[in-house]
């Protein structure tokens, strides 16, 4: 089974535990995906131009920021691969059984797009990001599913496994 596992940068270990508790790792082929959200950066540029009335930031300085985000995504995925390999039931998996990839764009759209083009049999996603280190998780209720997970559930071309903290 080809499963697309969506990381948000804060929930890797928890996701790994949940997945291996629920799914049979034997016939599992996992793609770990992290999407660099381009929304805030684009909005920020628009805001600058609208309110400050000045043109775009210098291309090389914008590129510095983009590179930093890519490096961060790469580090995050490398760490995630280690976590998943270490927790894989019955020892580390074959190289073909797990891979990691990062994309840039609106996370919800990129997840749906990749799941259609790969194609995936299953999308695995957490219900929403944690609010912050000092904040308790969202209580059950409509707000416990964030906008990314909500969009994926609504638009996915395959079944979705929505994981939420107990």
């Amino acid at each position, binding site marked *: 089974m080809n499963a697309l596992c969506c990381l948000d940068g804060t929930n890797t270990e928890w996701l790994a535990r949940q997945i291996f508790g629920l799914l049979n790792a034997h016939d599992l082929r996992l793609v770990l995906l992290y999407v660099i959200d381009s929304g*805030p950066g684009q909005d*920020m540029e628009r805001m600058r131009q609208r309110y*400050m009335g*000045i*043109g775009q930031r210098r291309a090389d300085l914008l590129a*510095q920021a983009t590179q930093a985000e890519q490096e*961060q995504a790469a580090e995050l995925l490398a760490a995630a691969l280690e976590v998943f390999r270490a927790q894989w039931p019955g020892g580390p998996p074959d190289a073909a059984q797990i891979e990691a990839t990062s994309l840039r764009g609106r996370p919800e759209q990129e997840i749906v797009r990749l799941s259609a083009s790969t194609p995936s049999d299953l999308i695995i996603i957490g219900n929403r990001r944690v609010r*912050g280190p000092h904040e308790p998780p969202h209580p059950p209720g409509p707000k416990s599913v964030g906008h990314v997970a909500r969009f994926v559930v609504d638009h996915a071309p395959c079944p979705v496994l929505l994981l939420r903290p107990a």
Partner: protein
Amino acid sequence: MKLPLAALGYGLPAGVTTSMAVGIFVATLALIMLRPKQLNEALAALAGGIAMIAAGIVSPWQALQTLLGDWNIFLFFLGMLTLSALAERAGFFDWLAAQAAQLAKGSTRRLYLNVFLLGALISAFFSNDATALILTPIVYSLITRLRVSAMPFLFACTFIADTASFLLPVSNPINIIVLSRFNLGLLDFLRLLLLPSLLVIGINIGVFFLLFRRQLIGTFEIKRLGTPASAIRQQSYFRYVAIVLGVVAVAYLVISLVQQPLSLVAIGGAALLLLGALRWKQVQWKALGKELSWSIFGFIAGMFVVVQGVESIGLTQHAAQLLTSVAGSNTLAATLVGTTGAAVGSNLINNLPMALVLISTIGALSGSTPGVRLALIGATIFGCDLGPNLTTVGSLATVLWLLLLRRRGMDVSSLDYFKLGIVVTPLMLLIGALAIWLMLKV
């Protein structure tokens, strides 16, 4: 000169004219706040101004006189925006941010303090909008590279932008508008607002350190950042920009000391930077017009005429009478009422229109002591500058933070921001207002 009511609104009954003016005023503010179909604020304000003229509430001649009379403000905006854009092009702000990171020597807490101080410095000399709209993206990029928790830093940028916006007359365009309408100079400004300014900056930093103490523990690796010099693309242009900005900073102080128009310094500095940018090929003549968006000027011009309309039907005189009856000759009451009114009003109708309404109201005060008048002027600047920290709608700049915080475990709603604003801002407003009152007594 105010026209008698009979001369307004094509001879319509005074009640009809008043209703029309209030209707246009409210409709303009509603359009600016609600922005149906992404309507540009400038178009809304200009439409309001044109409606005031079309309804005969403000004559075209009066409108022209007001706009020409406020040339200092328009030129200041033009100069300040150009200065900021060209300094940014030189990598000046990125260089400053990298220096702030270097000086932190790996300590997250020290970096946090440095970001506050840098924000205050940029607000002081380039205005609050420059801190919120130019520094925030730079700090965001910086902390992404340093792998430090982003949220406290982004809050710091957006809050200090407004908190430090009454250190100097040039720190906020509202200060220039108020000072030029009441003919006040640097010393009056500093006497009234320096101590309150330093106090609220201190409170802002202290409370944020307390609130975010858990996220600020630890160190960062400065190696991830590269040297400050990496922000500089053209060494000679950068040096030139640094020198011109130094001269502009000193000239701001000298010119406001001798009560001459500050717009001359801003425009002069901008012209020098522009010459340098052309000399070192950092901008091109053809692209020059696109570097600045002109809508901000439409917004200010439209709002000037709309508020003039409300003024000419005598509405602000009523507000002035109300203010006189509440404050009387008591400077403490005047400061507290003025500050509260300005801060709450800034959050309801945005701070620029609120400042214009208050200026008009203070101008219509009769029979109040000079002390009360000065207290209200100080309170107007203070409340309209700082008040926007209370909610996200208060000033155009604070809208920005929400967009940034959506990312990476920072699912923060405007309610969260409001909670933070509601903790810190009233405290700063109260202590600042008391300090202004104290300074009036000295």
